[in-house]
């Protein structure tokens, strides 16, 4: 059986959970078994996971799980994996999943490959999995040989597919004693999709000249329903908040569309964004290194190009 830990920050299943279950279902098909989803705490609409391919949905509803502690979460997931004879355990490669997956590997005496971005191939009793390494500069293939295998799935690596039907949620009880972290507060930015989950990201750099010019970037993001990001010097000079900083030292993202405005494309910036599916670069310097990593490019002054682009997108949105 393939067990998917479907995480539910503050009680809500998010895209990462639907991706993980969709992926889990496909892995289960490869192995000729079924996919079971596990949720922890009070979770809204857990039955929905059936639509993404879970044949059963288990919920350990103890309220203590609503505050994250990798120790108690891993203990619970490992318990369920053992009791149900899971051969593969899948988590999302998120702040939650990363903190849990390593612990599961030790608890279950299992091999872990983290940040996997495609389906495995089955080699006898082993699984072969690919992930991006060296900040996107190479691809590694790993083989897990242990009887139990742990995979953490990179965000945006698979598209959630709701082809099945909801299933009724089975309540289970698990041991809860292990946690020692006291969560005091969770501060999130309201509104926009968080960067790691965003499908479209509009990002701008030092070419913007100053924070007072960001209106055109905000407008572009608004039209596309995108999340905004920035280069490191922009965050370091406090033109934009730190949580928008992408790249090697900031957040690594892999949206479907990344629009880079007035960013030179330094290697440390590319390290965080070069796994984007499609990259559009707007830069007045035709020699800017970013053009080498781009799919589409516009050589021109961003203060002229971006307002025109906004008009073109608006026109497109109005007729589509």
């Amino acid at each position, binding site marked *: 059986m393939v067990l998917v830990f479907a995480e539910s920050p503050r009680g809500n299943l998010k895209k990462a959970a639907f991706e993980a279950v969709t992926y889990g279902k496909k892995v289960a098909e490869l192995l000729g078994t079924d996919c079971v989803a596990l949720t922890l705490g009070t979770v809204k609409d857990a039955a929905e996971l059936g639509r993404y391919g879970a044949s059963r949905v288990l919920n350990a509803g103890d309220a203590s799980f609503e505050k994250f502690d990798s120790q108690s979460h891993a203990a619970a997931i490992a318990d369920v994996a053992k009791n149900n004879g899971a051969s593969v355990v899948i988590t999302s490669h998120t702040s939650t999943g990363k903190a849990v997956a*390593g612990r599961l590997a030790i608890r279950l005496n299992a091999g872990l490959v983290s940040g996997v971005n495609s389906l495995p191939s089955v080699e006898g009793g082993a699984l072969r999995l690919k992930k991006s390494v060296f900040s996107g500069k190479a691809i590694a293939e790993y083989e*897990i040989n242990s009887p139990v295998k742990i995979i953490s799935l990179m965000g945006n690596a698979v598209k959630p597919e709701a082809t099945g039907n909801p299933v009724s949620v089975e309540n289970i009880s698990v041991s809860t004693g292990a946690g020692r972290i006291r969560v005091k507060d969770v501060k*999130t930015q309201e509104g926009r999709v968080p*960067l790691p989950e965003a499908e479209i990201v509009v990002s701008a750099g030092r070419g913007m000249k100053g924070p007072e010019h960001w209106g055109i970037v905000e407008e572009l993001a608004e039209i596309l329903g995108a999340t905004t990001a920035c280069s490191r010097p922009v965050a370091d000079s406090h033109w934009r908040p730190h949580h928008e900083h992408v790249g090697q*030292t900031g957040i690594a993202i892999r949206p479907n569309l990344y629009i880079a405005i007035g960013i030179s494309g330094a290697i440390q910036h590319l390290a965080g964004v070069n796994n984007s*599916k499609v990259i559009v670069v707007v830069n007045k310097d035709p020699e800017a290194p970013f053009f080498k990593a781009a799919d589409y490019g516009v050589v021109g002054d961003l203060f002229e190009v971006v307002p025109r682009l906004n008009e073109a997108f608006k026109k497109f949105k109005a007729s589509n």
Partner: protein
Amino acid sequence: MKLLVCISQTPDTTAKVSFNADGTEFNAAGVQFIMNPYDEWYALVRACELREALGGAVVALNVGPASNETTIRKALAIGADEAVRINAEPKSAAYTAKQIAEYARNEKFDIIFLGKETIDYNGSEVGAMVAEYLDLPYISYASKLDLNGNVATLERDIEGGVEVLEVDLPFVVSAAKGMAEQRIPNMRGIMTARTKPLKEVQPVSFDEPVKAVRFTLPPAKAGVKLVEPDNMDELVRLLHEEAKVI
């Protein structure tokens, strides 16, 4: 205060990445190696700040061959009091975590610091594994860490925000941007680093459950398609019809 900082050595950010002909080994020829930035800038510096405020000792630990000693000396120059090198090729995160945990098990550290991830194999695995081996709480991607007696207050980066939490010593933490400001070693630091103790420890054996099969380079991009700056309708059309991303 007894603090452990796990430091790894990685190829320089700007290094050209290549592999041997059958794709089984990283090509280290001509590559410059550095201390993994998160370990150096955030984990190590915050540990040194706490030691400066509260007394005690900072131990820098690396699992690696003797050739890593330049990197380890840099950690001493930045401010670690002593260093330990576990004499082994760090074959995987699981292998590395096992070595770190076995060393730390009897040393009674108050805090074990790591970086949020290494920039070469990008795993973010070691910290959680060490914490599980030692049965300790683990706070990953921490961008703030303050201590008040036995109780630490931390902020942890989560998707679209931060989580504020408290935990008692001892614990394992992985450091992200924000926890401290990078320090450049000064002349005095570099001089004293030469005389600080650097101990060599032998590894314990470990059965590898995961092995690297092959490394490849990503397929080259087809090349950029340029659109005239006065024809943004064309760019929108391409994104819709050709790239199919809007």
